C-alpha cells in the first residue's frame, strides 16, 4: 500500500467503521472490538485484560470524582499538594521521551541494528504519552478549561506553559511520524524531518518538565538546573526498560520466537550495554543527589534523612538499579532473555516508585518553623491509585491494540 492511499484510508476510516457497524450489527462489532478480529494471540488476551482493568479503574475514579471530587485525594493545601497522579504523569511522559530516544537511535542516528524495535518504540511512546496525559487530565481541577486558558494566558515565564506547548507539539509530530512509518515510509525527506523534529521537540519538552521542578528555589530537594539532564538519563533508562519488556512480551518472552534481526539485537551485547550504561549513570546521579542531601545543611534537604531510612528507597536502589546494573554488565547474563526481562521489570518498578518519591519528597519539609510539627505525611488514596491504574492499563491496552493491528515489528525493507 502506498503512503497516499494509506493516509486517505485514515480519513475515511470513520466512514468505513460506521458502514461496517451497519453491516454486521452492534453485537458482532462489539465482539470484533473485544477480540480485535483475527486469530487469538497473546495480544488479544492483554487487550481484554487491560480493557477490563481500564473500565474498572476508570469507573471507580469517575465515581469518586463525581461524588467526592478531588477531595477523594489524600493531597492537601498545607502539606503534599502534588501526589501519585502527578508522579504517574511524570513517569509516563518521561518513559515516552525515552522510547523516542530509543527509536531515534535507528531512525535518526544511523544505528541500524535498532530498527527491529523502532516502530514498536514509536507506538509505545504514543501509548505512554496518552496514558500520562489521561492521568494528568483526571488530576487537574479543570482540564477542559486548560485548552483555552493556557494558550490565551501565554504565560511565557511558566515552565508549565512551555511543557504544554512542547508536549502537545511532540504528540502531533510523533503521531505523524507513526502514520508515515506505518505506511512504509521510513526514509523520505518528510519522514526524516518528522523524526528529527519529534526528537528535538521531546528533548525540549522533557527539559521543561525538568525545569518545572528544577526552577523551584523554595523547594531545595528539586532545585537543580541540571535536573533536565537527570531526567534525560532516567527517561532514556525508562524507555529502554519499556522497549525490552514490551518487545519480549510481543514474542512470548522468548528469543527463539523472534525474527532473525531482532534476535540478533536481543541476544547481542549492544542493547544490554546501552541499558547498563544508562543504569550506571542513574546510580551515579542517585548517589550524588543522596550524598548532597545528607551532607548539606540546606533547609529542605532534611528529607534525605527520611529517604535513606525508608525500605522503598532501598528497594529502588539495590533491587531496582544495582541488581539490573550487575545483570546487564555481566557478559554471560546480559544476553539471557530472563535476565533482560527481569532487569527491565525491576527498572520499571524502581522508576515508578522513584518518580513518586521525587515528587513527594520535594514537598515533605515544612517551609518555616511552626507550619508543621515535623515532616508532612502522605500516602496515596484509593482514588489516586485508580488514576495510576488508568495510566497503566491504558498503556497495556494501547500496546496490545497496536501489536495486534498495526504490525509493530515492521522495519524498512533495506534494514
Amino acid at each position, binding site marked *: 500500500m502506498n503512503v497516499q492511499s494509506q493516509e486517505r484510508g485514515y480519513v475515511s476510516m470513520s466512514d468505513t467503521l460506521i458502514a461496517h457497524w451497519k453491516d454486521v450489527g452492534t453485537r458482532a462489532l462489539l465482539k470484533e472490538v473485544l477480540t480485535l478480529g483475527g486469530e487469538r494471540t497473546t495480544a488479544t488476551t492483554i487487550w481484554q485484560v487491560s480493557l477490563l482493568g481500564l473500565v474498572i479503574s476508570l469507573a471507580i475514579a469517575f465515581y469518586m470524582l463525581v461524588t467526592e471530587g478531588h477531595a477523594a485525594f489524600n493531597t492537601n493545601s498545607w502539606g503534599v499538594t502534588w501526589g501519585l497522579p502527578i508522579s504517574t504523569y511524570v513517569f509516563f511522559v518521561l518513559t515516552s521521551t525515552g522510547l523516542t530516544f530509543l527509536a531515534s537511535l535507528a531512525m535518526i542516528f544511523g544505528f541500524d541494528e535498532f530498527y527491529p524495535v523502532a516502530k514498536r518504540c514509536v507506538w509505545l511512546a504514543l501509548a505512554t504519552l496518552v496514558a500520562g496525559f489521561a492521568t494528568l487530565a483526571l488530576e487537574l*481541577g479543570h482540564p477542559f478549561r486548560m485548552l483555552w486558558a493556557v494558550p490565551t494566558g501565554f504565560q511565557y515565564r511558566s515552565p508549565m506553559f512551555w511543557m*504544554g506547548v512542547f508536549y502537545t507539539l511532540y504528540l502531533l509530530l510523533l503521531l505523524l511520524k507513526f502514520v508515515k512509518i506505518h505506511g512504509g515510509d521510513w526514509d523520505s525527506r518528510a519522514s526524516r524531518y518528522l523524526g528529527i523534529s519529534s526528537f528535538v521537540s521531546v528533548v525540549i519538552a522533557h527539559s521543561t518538565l525538568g525545569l518545572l521542578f528544577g526552577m523551584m528555589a523554595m523547594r531545595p530537594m528539586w532545585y537543580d538546573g541540571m535536573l533536565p539532564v537527570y531526567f534525560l538519563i532516567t527517561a532514556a533508562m525508562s524507555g529502554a526498560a519499556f522497549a525490552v519488556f514490551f518487545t519480549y512480551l510481543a514474542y512470548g518472552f522468548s528469543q527463539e520466537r523472534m525474527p532473525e534481526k531482532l534476535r540478533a539485537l536481543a541476544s547481542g551485547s549492544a542493547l544490554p550495554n546501552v541499558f547498563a550504561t544508562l543504569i550506571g549513570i542513574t546510580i551515579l546521579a542517585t548517589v550524588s543527589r543522596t550524598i548532597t542531601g545528607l551532607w548539606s545543611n540546606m533547609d529542605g534537604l532534611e528529607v534525605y534523612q527520611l529517604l535513606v531510612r525508608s525500605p522503598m528507597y532501598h528497594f529502588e536502589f539495590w533491587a531496582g538499579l544495582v541488581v539490573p546494573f550487575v545483570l546487564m554488565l555481566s557478559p554471560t547474563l546480559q544476553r539471557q532473555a530472563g535476565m533482560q526481562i527481569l532487569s527491565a521489570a525491576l527498572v520499571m518498578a524502581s522508576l515508578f516508585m522513584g518518580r513518586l518519591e521525587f515528587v513527594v519528597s520535594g514537598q515533605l519539609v515544612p517551609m518555616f518553623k511552626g*507550619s508543621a510539627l515535623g515532616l508532612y505525611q502522605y500516602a496515596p488514596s484509593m482514588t489516586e491509585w485508580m488514576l495510576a491504574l488508568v495510566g497503566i492499563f491504558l498503556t497495556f491496552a494501547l500496546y496490545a491494540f497496536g501489536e495486534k493491528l498495526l504490525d509493530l515489528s515492521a522495519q524498512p525493507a533495506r534494514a
Partner: protein
Amino acid sequence: MAKWGMVIDLEKCTGCQACTAACAMENNRQPGENWQDVIYFTEGEYPSVQVKWFPRPCMHCENPSCVHVCPTRATYKTDEGFVLIDWDRCIGCKYCMIACPYGVRFYTDEKPLVGPDIKTVFKSNDEHSWNPPWKMPDSREDWKHGVGVQPRDVVSKCTFCYHRVSKAPKGTPDLSEHDPKTREYTPACVVACPPTARYFGDLDNPESEVSKMISNKNGVRLLDQLGNKPQVYYLTGVGGAVPSNRAIKKT
C-alpha cells in the same frame, strides 16, 4: 499609584486569632482554609521552653513566584500590588501552591479538616463550592479578583480584602480602623485586631505610617532570602520573632 502593604508588630500581637476569625467571616472561609492564620510553635526545650506565635496572611510579594508559574495567568499581580486569582481562568493545577514559599494558597476540593464537612452541610445548588448561611452581598462577589465564595476545583487565597481596599480614595497613605474616613476600606484582619498590631498603607508613600514604621523599627520579611520580597513586614522589637526557616531538627 499606591503599593499596598501590611506591617505586623509582633511585640503587640497576642495570638488571639481575631484576625483569622474576622477574615473567615469577611471572606467565607472554611475551617482550615485560613487565608489569614496565626501559627503556633515552640522554641527551646524544657525547662526554658517558650510558646511562640506568628500571624501569616498572604505576603502579596513584589516578585511573586506563584504568578510566574501560573500557566494561564489566572494568578496575577495588579498595579496596586495585590496578588489575586481569576477563578474563571484557574485550571486547578496547583503549581502556584507548589511555588508559594508561605503556604497561603488553598485548593477548594480537599478532605475537610474537621467534621462534619461544611460543604455538604451547606450544599451549593449552583456553581459555588458551597452555600454558607451567611455571606457577603452577591454584588460584592468578584470571581475575576478571587473575592467571595469560590467555585469548585480552583485555588483561593487572601486578597488583602481587595473588595474593601480597592475602593479607598486615591492617594490615601494609610488605611486605619481608627480613622472613620478609612475604616470601611481597611482589611478585615486589620480592623479586628484588638491590640492594633496590624497596620495597612501605601508602601510607596514615604509619609505613610507603614513606611515610617518599616524604616524606623527595622521591618523584616519572612524567608527574605528567597527573593519574593513580601509586601508584609514584621516588626520584631525585643519580644517578637520571625520564625526561623529551619523547620525541623536535623539529626
